[in-house]
């Protein structure tokens, strides 16, 4: 699939912008701070209803405006689909598909499938385990939307269970005596069930990702040591759901005294991690800046390759990538992604982008975009 047209109204720095894209490679060129990333961010938002840069919607709306509109025309299998999103901070987003309002904005998910690599992704390697869990879970949902429900169920059960443990903990602290924990068994059961489903899916995903990560890292890094990913669960067992549920159940029973003591859930996939290894050493703490950066890029490229291998070819966006690479690695990356149905590249210096990618060049200036040549 590819985006053939993007229209922005009051989004970030753009009062109004219309830009036509073609399939294949598009290079967005402009000095720092003119709004190249904003364009990529708008498309990413259309794809995931989430910004890769900010957690709240307010910064997405141009100063002084109340609503930002993102309108994208997506061509897939020769048919075009118009997706519109109105972002109004503090209120629910409104969405339309081909001009018709949809009941929930969530219904536009899947209309535009996109994988984005941005400088923020360095946190995938250097940041908290939460960053890596999110990477896995987002990819799960992109592959099978049902996992949005599994993830939400697990988070809800966890929240309820923590609330129960917390009130018991607080009651004990003020000397109110033992609180009723009779429902804890029920929450354990549900936590184990939903947790096992999430863990089994993440394990399966990691196994599928592995070869893609190794291949992508090999292409973009200087080739010192192989990159491997492994899911690191807090409990032994799996990969089938029944044994995982049993393992979680046992672990919850074992952890019960310390959980009651501390008033928080200590067992479950919300504490798992994805370990990234370069050769023999963990990437976190040992990898250089360049290696960490390459690993993060490899994770995104692997997600792209996996989605591509499973059917619909997503749009690939590389924000400010080529400037970080030497010539040899630039060429290898270009070879890897050159065949993308649509590739969006941003850069400050046009010479950084390998010639072989070709494509159409757009010059980005303050609040406007002009097709070059």
């Amino acid at each position: 699939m590819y985006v053939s047209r993007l229209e922005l109204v009051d989004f970030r720095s753009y009062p109004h912008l219309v830009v036509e894209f073609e399939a294949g490679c598009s290079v967005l060129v402009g000095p720092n701070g003119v709004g190249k990333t904003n364009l990529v961010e708008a498309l990413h938002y259309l794809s995931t209803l989430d910004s890769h840069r900010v957690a709240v919607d307010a910064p997405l709306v141009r100063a002084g405006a109340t609503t930002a509109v993102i309108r994208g025309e997506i061509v897939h299998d020769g048919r075009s689909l118009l997706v519109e999103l109105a972002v109004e901070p503090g209120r629910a987003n409104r969405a339309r598909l081909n001009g018709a309002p949809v009941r929930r904005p969530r219904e536009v998910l899947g209309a535009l499938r996109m994988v984005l690599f941005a400088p923020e992704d360095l946190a995938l390697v250097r940041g908290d385990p939460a960053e890596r869990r999110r990477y896995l879970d987002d990819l799960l949902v992109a592959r099978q939307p049902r996992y949005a429900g599994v993830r939400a169920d697990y988070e809800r059960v966890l929240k309820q269970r923590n609330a129960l443990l917390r009130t018991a903990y607080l009651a004990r602290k003020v000397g109110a005596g033992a609180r009723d924990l009779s429902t804890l068994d029920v929450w354990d059961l549900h936590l184990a069930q939903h947790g096992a489903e999430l863990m089994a899916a993440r394990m399966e995903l990691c196994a599928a990702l592995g070869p893609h990560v190794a291949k992508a890292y090999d292409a973009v890094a200087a080739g010192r040591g192989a990159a491997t990913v492994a899911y690191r669960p807090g409990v032994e067992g799996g990969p089938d759901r029944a044994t995982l549920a049993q393992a979680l159940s046992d672990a919850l029973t074992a952890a019960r005294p310390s959980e009651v003591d501390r008033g928080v859930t200590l067992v479950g996939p919300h504490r798992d991690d994805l370990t990234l290894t370069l050769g023999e050493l963990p990437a976190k703490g040992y990898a250089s800046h360049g290696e960490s950066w390459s690993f993060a890029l490899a994770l995104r490229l692997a997600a792209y390759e996996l989605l591509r291998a499973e059917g619909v070819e997503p749009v690939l966006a590389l924000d400010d990538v080529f400037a970080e690479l030497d010539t040899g690695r630039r060429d290898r990356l270009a070879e890897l992604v050159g065949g993308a149905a649509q590739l969006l590249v941003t850069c400050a210096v046009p010479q950084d982008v390998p010639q072989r990618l070709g494509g159409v060049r757009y010059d980005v200036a303050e609040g406007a975009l002009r097709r070059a040549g």
Partner: protein
Amino acid sequence: MYEGAIQDLIDELGRLPGVGPKSAQRIAFHVLSADPADVKRLAAALQRVKELVRFCTTCFNVAESEQCRICRDPRRTGDVLCVVEEPKDVVAIERTGEFRGRYHVLGGAINPLEGIGPDNLRIRELMARLADGTVKELILATDPNTEGEATATYLALLVKPMGIAVTRLASGLPVGGDLEYADEITLGRAFEGRRAV
């Protein structure tokens, strides 16, 4: 902002569930222009509902006497009991015309975030009803969300050892709709829960 009585009315209406400020204003001006007799009837109905409506002493459905209509009905079988969260769930199930047993209204679901535990629900009363052995099947019809599922599991763990059959409502695709209009999550789950035919 309006003055005095009309603003008071708008404020009160705005506190009702599902009524936003714009709707509250529209209803308030409708009341203002309505026939005084109609308004009196509405006011009387509002007052009567608080004065007359009570909860059935057996099943805790809404009732106008000691027991609700369903508990008083001798044609209802006493060996199947359907557990629901709220009185409005009783009405929903009654509309199906499928169920000829009796109900038990819990008054909510287990929800630690809101401080609701088993003691805040009518679970002790349910156990008392089940103690005499007339009920042979307990149908758990709590909502299909996290809290409703937890409540259903809690009751199942409690009741199963008593030798009573415990069943749970099925969940899946809405009947009469098109498959293509089901959202991915519902359809995905229906796939997971598929059964042999």
